[in-house]
């Protein structure tokens, strides 16, 4: 082998080994940093300063901040922490840098308001974010929808929710659900169908995967809550008719109160408890349910149940 060829072979080998070693070490650094990273920090909260620093490239900076907000929420949620203190400023900076970027408003409506661990527990901040969005995008029906949604889910203020949906129904380009939602708020605010319609609209009108999954989880939880409510009503009817509680779900079927064995979204039959309550078999596998839980158990957390 000539000297030049030998050098080439050695250099190629060093290059490949270094590349592979570098990737391995980098993975190790990543794992180490995840374990040991100190509290996340947002060093610059002033949009004015950021505007100056980025030499006017605010769009790109807004994109970076938006990505960071999503990553931040995902990482905090995944790690099971209840601390989402940076979510509001990250979304605020993003929307101030680019007030026409819609996903941050929707994200804020879905995840700033709900109490930890499913959100930041800052409904006031979520409302301020949406009002800022409406101020800068008065013709976008989605923002009114998100505001109405927030009033409905977090504030339980159905009158204001109806008002937001009505305003959203009046913009030049709107969604067919808006006037229906406005009407339902006035008459059937507390009903399962209303909540279902809201979550369904959320699912339909976003492409953001986290928000869609959140909507699906809530829709499934609503189904369980409704099933459990109806089954418990049936149990009470059975008791009124026979003078005793049914011993199994099959008793209800035999008595003609139900048809078939009702199952939860995981295709597991509901359990009838000795005191007449209905429970789901694996409550932690269905996030957000408020009914069908063992006594004293809190509503399960999304993304951490198995």
């Amino acid at each position, binding site marked *: 082998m000539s000297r030049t060829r030998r050098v*080439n072979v050695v250099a190629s080998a060093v290059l490949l080994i*270094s590349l592979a070693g*570098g990737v391995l*070490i*980098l993975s190790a650094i*990543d794992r*180490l*940093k995840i374990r040991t990273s*100190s509290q996340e920090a947002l060093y610059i909260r002033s949009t004015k300063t950021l505007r100056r620093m980025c030499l006017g490239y605010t769009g790109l900076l807004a994109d*970076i901040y938006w990505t960071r907000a999503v990553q931040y929420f995902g990482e905090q949620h995944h790690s099971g922490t209840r601390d989402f203190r940076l979510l509001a400023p990250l979304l605020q900076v993003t929307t101030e840098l680019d007030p026409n970027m819609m996903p941050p408003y929707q994200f804020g409506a879905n995840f700033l308001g709900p109490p930890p661990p499913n959100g930041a527990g800052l409904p006031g901040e979520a409302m301020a974010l949406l009002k800022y969005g409406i101020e800068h995008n008065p013709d976008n029906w989605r923002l009114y929808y998100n505001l109405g949604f927030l009033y409905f889910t977090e504030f339980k203020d159905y009158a204001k929710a109806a008002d937001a949906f009505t305003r959203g129904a009046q913009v030049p380009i709107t969604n067919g659900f808006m006037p229906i939602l406005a009407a339902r708020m006035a008459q059937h605010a507390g009903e399962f169908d209303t909540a279902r319609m809201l979550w369904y609209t959320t699912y339909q009108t976003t492409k953001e995967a986290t928000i869609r999954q959140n909507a699906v989880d809530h829709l499934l939880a609503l189904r369980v809550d409704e099933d459990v409510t109806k089954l418990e009503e049936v149990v009470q009817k059975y008791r009124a008719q026979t003078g005793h509680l049914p011993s199994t779900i099959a008793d209800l079927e035999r008595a003609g109160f139900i048809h078939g064995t009702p199952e939860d979204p995981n295709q597991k039959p509901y359990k009838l408890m000795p005191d007449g309550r209905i429970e789901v078999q694996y409550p932690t596998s269905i996030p957000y349910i408020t009914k069908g839980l063992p006594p004293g158990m809190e509503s399960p957390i999304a993304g951490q149940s198995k």
Partner: protein
Amino acid sequence: MNSRIGYVAFNTFREAVRDRVLYNLIAFAVLISGAAVLVGEISIDIERLVVVNLGLTVVSLFGVVIAIFIGIGLVSKEIERRTLYTVLSRPVRRWEFVVGKFLGLTGTLVVNTFFMAIGVFLALLYVAHKFERADVWVIVALYFIVLEFLIVCALSLFFSSFSTPIMSALFTFALFVIGSLAEDLRGFARITHGFTGAVATAIAYVVPNFSAFNIINQAAHGFAVPGQLILYNTLYALLYSAMAISGAVLIFQRRNLK
């Protein structure tokens, strides 16, 4: 070490000193002493923070600029002055020339950083009146900055082995910026899927990860740095530099110098 590599390295260092590269130390001294005096006047309780943040940031930026602007000229200048032919006609092999240049440049930066580090610690002593145990993390941060220089030197040498000085400077600086945002890049790769995810992951792992070397803020706050991170960063810097230098050797071996 191979004595021919040592000669090339020593001459590279000597040339950098002759080119008045170390004059940047004067600018650094003025800046850091000015900052130390100023923060003593205007800051409340954050004097140490400001001195460490400012000092280490300037050490890093000055070093990167020196590494880029000297590194890109290492090969082209030798060709332009025709001194390369004299060197290579002696029993100096091409790979020895490349490795020697790399070592000479990193040596220059180590010396430069050493003097700047003295400046940082003098400024710290001035504002805090004493050294603290947490100051050891400032030394670790400086060590990481030196590791960062190894990679930047290797990259600038790699690009200068096949490109013009201006393009080499642009490429190296662009990689420095991208590498400084490497964590965000990997975060982006984690949330993308399919083909985009694969491409983003590949890019995220191939570009140098400078963000792992930047612990300036932790050092300023006196936060401890895990020993494992020191080990991993050292290995990573050595491997990445070896990779870039091997690439430079491979290209330089094939390059027609006539």
